[in-house]
């Protein structure tokens, strides 16, 4: 398990909160920029690209 501090609000995990997550989920949140924390292991560029692959961002307003 890893402890992260949420930057975005993700599902039930509100931004600003410190939460404990399974390493794989914590790493995913960190790599996607949803949370601050320490990765449980190194990720090669292919793994990082795969993790970042399917995100969509909707900017509201100006």
């Amino acid at each position, binding site marked *: 398990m890893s402890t992260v501090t949420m930057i975005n609000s993700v599902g039930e995990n509100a931004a600003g909160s410190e939460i404990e997550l399974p390493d794989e989920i914590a790493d995913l949140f960190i790599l996607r920029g949803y949370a601050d924390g320490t990765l449980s292991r190194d990720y090669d560029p292919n793994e990082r690209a795969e993790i970042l*692959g399917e995100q969509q961002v909707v900017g509201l307003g100006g």
Partner: protein
Amino acid sequence: MASAHYNLFLQEAWKGTLGDLTSAGVAVKVRLMRTSAYTFSQAHQFASSLPAALVTDVTLGSKVANGNSPGGGSDPGCFDAADATFVAVPSGAAIDCLAIFRDTGTPATSNLMSYIDGFTVTPNGGDITIQWQASAPWIAKL
């Protein structure tokens, strides 16, 4: 339909019955929706009027009442919070509106606050992040 506050929320806000909506102890959630499944109405007061969630609703954090979350800014009256990420939104038709509500744990008592449209995103099965406006009214202004 333009984005709007629910009048029955404004009524309760003026009466002071909803408490401090920026408090960490008060759950304010966001639900992604499709206008094909939901028509905004000022007669709607509670989340029980919304269609079923397409994906887990997001609980907003770093809420402020003066814009520019997380630290707060210089726009009194503007509700803001950290960006909201919906995880693994199932592929399907375009999503083009959302509702913000105060979640009590029971839809029939969860006050609808604001409705926002004017965007569209076709889910691809991955995450969808809603980036709130980076200037007034931020998320919404009373």
